[in-house]
């Protein structure tokens, strides 16, 4: 084993220690942060309140859509029942085999 090979982990640890010691100075970036934050907060609140207003106004239309879907679904299932009944009257064996397979 080569005794002179530096320990890569020790090397890495030394680099980390040096990087830790050199903390980035963020004081310039921090200057006036609260003012910028509150300005953004106000604009975010305004946009979210607009969305809330629009979504409340959409509720009646969405409700009407749900009712229409329910009615359509009920009609469709009634028609399907009728079709099954007609088919059963015409050929009961085939319908039984079909329902057994499903």
């Amino acid at each position, binding site marked *: 084993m080569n005794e002179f090979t530096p320990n890569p982990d020790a090397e890495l640890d030394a680099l980390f220690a040096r990087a830790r010691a050199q903390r980035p100075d*963020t004081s310039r970036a*921090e200057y006036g*942060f*609260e003012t910028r934050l509150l300005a953004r907060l106000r604009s*975010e609140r305004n946009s979210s309140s607009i969305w809330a207003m629009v979504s409340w106004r959409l509720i009646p239309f969405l409700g009407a859509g749900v009712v229409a879907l329910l009615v359509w679904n009920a009609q469709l299932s009634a028609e399907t029942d009728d079709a099954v009944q007609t088919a059963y009257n015409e050929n009961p064996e085939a319908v039984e085999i079909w329902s057994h397979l499903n």
Partner: protein
Amino acid sequence: MAPEESSTPDEQLVEATLGGDDHAFAEIARRYKGRVFGVAARFARNTAEIDDICQDVFIQAYFKLRQFRRDSPFEHWLMRITTFKCYDYLRKHRRESGSISVDAMLESGHEPSAPEHPAAHPDLERLRAALVQLSPKERLIITLLELEERSIQEISGLTGWSASNVKVRAFRARAALRKLMEIKT
């Protein structure tokens, strides 16, 4: 004139913020911005990006404030949001930048050290360039563990990963970093 230090407890400021007092939230931001900026600066490339990350952190904290449970200090909760935002930033940035070698990065001056860093030693520049090459998870863990000196338990709390998962990821991240650093030498 330096801003006056407020001794109002965090819980009281949180309650006041929930009651609609924006000045209370500004006080929370003033109190913790140093910590949040310090962590964000380890990941971001420039002042504008640091500011973006920090604003995102505090905006999310504001809108999720009702979810803050009083069973742990406010600072822990805020640092958890900071960690997630930094991780999000790394993922987005990774998608945008694609892959570029450490050497090419150093030669092109593409290396993303923030301008606030004083003229760094070439080895530190190399370390930063290598960190950029790590996956977001690897970079997050190396930064928290080695640069921010967080314990395994703390990282587990911040990321939501199990302690053993953190250990495994840290081991792999170090190995990846070693490999990347060896490319240069």
